[in-house]
């Protein structure tokens, strides 16, 4: 039993964090979306190769190995279909050696529509779209039949797909949409944890400098206790995300339940972080002037992706009340 982060996990995360700090600052999140900031550099450190098998130019890692790095992409609110390309695509393109090579090199950004998902995120930034239909995966050329559906998140854009676009779809016989959905859901949960950590850090920093009544607002207990509650929520959501990743990697019988537990807990912790961040910032947080709004929107957007809290909670309720088997 060794449920601690390994040096390799931490090293990959530290590298990703450094790259994002240098190449994906908030200005890039706000204005540089279409350039996919930091994408090529993260390809250079192997992020997109992580789950690609070694014989296809990948690193052959487990999903669990990438969770801390994926948290960092959430912390930076990195634009582009990151979770989809890192986590979902290798399972969908398992029977396509040429595509796997492209994936590993970072030259093939992929977005997906899996499970109950209605929209395709960041479809305009992907070179390849994979959609699930009747339990099978199909590849679509980028750019066909897409309609942008503008919404609260100006960076993680949602697109609907015309049903007729499926006529031109190519089946992906080696693809495993079920595994891809599990993985991308866990990856999204990891990003939510990262986004929540960013919101907590920036709000703590703001509360330490903003003064009212002659004192930093962060010295008031009402503010302290709300932020402490966010810290607790994030602290106890994160291990569920790691467990889900290990569970998916090992195809445990509890994998679906563990994925739902991770997504629901991470989504709720991040929404609590967002709500508290806005409240502590006050009116300035309610403006476009601060970058805060980008992270708020990202949390709302990711919390709803790949099943919002409600369907995951419903699945958990059924699963736990019928058989709450523990793992380990």
């Amino acid at each position, binding site marked *: 039993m060794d449920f*601690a982060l390994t040096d390799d996990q931490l090293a990959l995360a530290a590298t990703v964090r450094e790259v994002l700090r240098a190449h994906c600052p908030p200005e890039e999140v706000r204005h540089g979306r279409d350039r996919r900031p930091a994408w090529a550099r993260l390809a250079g450190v192997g992020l997109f190769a992580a789950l690609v098998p070694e014989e296809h130019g990948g690193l052959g890692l487990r999903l669990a190995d990438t969770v801390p790095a994926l948290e960092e992409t959430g912390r930076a609110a990195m634009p582009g279909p990151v979770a989809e390309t890192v986590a979902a695509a290798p399972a969908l393109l398992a029977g396509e050696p040429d595509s796997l090579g492209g994936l590993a090199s970072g030259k093939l950004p992929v977005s997906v529509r899996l499970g109950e998902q209605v929209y395709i995120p960041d479809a305009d930034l992907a070179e390849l779209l994979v959609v699930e239909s009747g339990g099978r995966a199909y590849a679509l050329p980028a750019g066909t039949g897409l309609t942008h559906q503008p919404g609260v998140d100006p960076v993680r854009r949602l697109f609907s797909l015309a049903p007729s676009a499926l006529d031109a779809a190519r089946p992906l016989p080696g693809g495993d949409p079920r595994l891809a959905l599990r993985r991308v859901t866990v990856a999204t949960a990891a990003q939510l944890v990262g986004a929540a950590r960013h919101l907590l850090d920036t709000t703590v920093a703001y509360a*330490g400098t903003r003064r009212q009544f002659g004192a930093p607002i962060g010295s008031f207990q009402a503010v302290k206790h709300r*932020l*402490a509650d966010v810290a*607790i929520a994030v602290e106890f959501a994160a291990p569920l995300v790691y*467990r889900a990743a*290990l569970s998916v990697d090992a195809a445990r019988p509890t994998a679906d339940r563990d994925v739902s537990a991770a997504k629901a807990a991470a989504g709720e912790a991040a929404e609590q972080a967002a709500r508290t961040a806005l409240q502590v910032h006050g009116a300035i947080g309610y403006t476009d002037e601060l970058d805060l709004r980008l992270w708020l929107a990202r949390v709302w957007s990711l919390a709803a992706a790949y099943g919002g809290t409600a369907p995951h909670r419903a699945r*958990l309720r059924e699963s736990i009340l019928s058989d709450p088997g523990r793992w380990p």
Partner: protein
Amino acid sequence: MDLDFTPAERDFRAEARAWLRENVPPRPLPSMDTPAGFEAHRAWERRLAAARLSAVSWPEEYGGRGASLVEWLIFEEEYWAAGAPGRVSQNGVFLLAPTLFAFGTPDQRARLLPRMAAADDIWAQAWSEPEAGSDLAALRSRAVRAEGGWRLYGHKTWSSRAAYADWAFGLFRTDPAAPRHRGLTYLMFPLTGADGVTVRPIAQLGGGHGFAEILLDGLYVPDDLVLGAPGDGWRIAMATTSSERGLTLRSPGRFLATADRLVRLARHTGADPALADEVARAWLDAEAYRLHTFATARRIAAGEEIGPAASMGKVFWSELDVRMHRLAQRLLGERGLLSGAAPDAADGGRWLDGFLFSLAGPIYAGTNEIQRTIIAERVLGLPR
């Protein structure tokens, strides 16, 4: 990173499970907060000790098994899952002992620990005073220098297990001129068989005598019952309180067991979806605490100090415990309010006992308001 128990860990679990299956009393013991119940729990502790299961993580020379932290967590899971009695020796084994290992002399360890493991001595904590609750450093009880030792004066209260325990440990002011966190000394003292100490049990809201006040009027304590250096008591006590808030006070095992019972209750009573949803959530929160603790155990084993982050766990488990017991009561309706004496009691009154006990959790070991302030200031770095 993995979640796979080693063969040795699995063997240990199997051994603990088998022993508990053979030995756990089929019916709950009477409350440890009554004289007869206290002695029944002491007898249970002796049975555990005879199997060297009363303090598994201690070194063998003191009555333990030298078990790793993970093995101890496994033992706790099995212990609570088996429905075994509450630990009357909790204060000594899990609060004082870690402090003795860290700060005690070899002589103190040799004299005190084996008797503690064998439940020959049962310990109470004596932190709070009438004017020093959350603000522990406001304590006023004094220890005055005497020939070869100290004489204790003052008034301790809310002392868990003190009504029937043999010994207690707490802080005393030994240098009244020093700043309030200084000049405090960590002392151990007898509760029975000595002059100058009076114990008055306090009836709790559930009726039992789970705590007491301790009146000290010149009780003599020799120097070899000072833990650490005189004047260094605050630092030493804080080491104990961080174990108290952290995993040694409330390992995940008991919450996992409660969560499993709650799920069975929800299934049995046919909970509506809204309640069932909350039950599932509580079960998962117990899981989250468990996973978090496995990660923490690994960090402790690697020599890391957990420090103020332990406060996050304390808030989390204590509020989870209240929530689970409230849910059970909502599932049970009026039956949930019946005690074990009632013919219709649910599960021998255990849900009610557990509910009342859970309500103390957000208060003891530092109220959750204090914990949130600690988290904000010392984990997050917000200004004081």
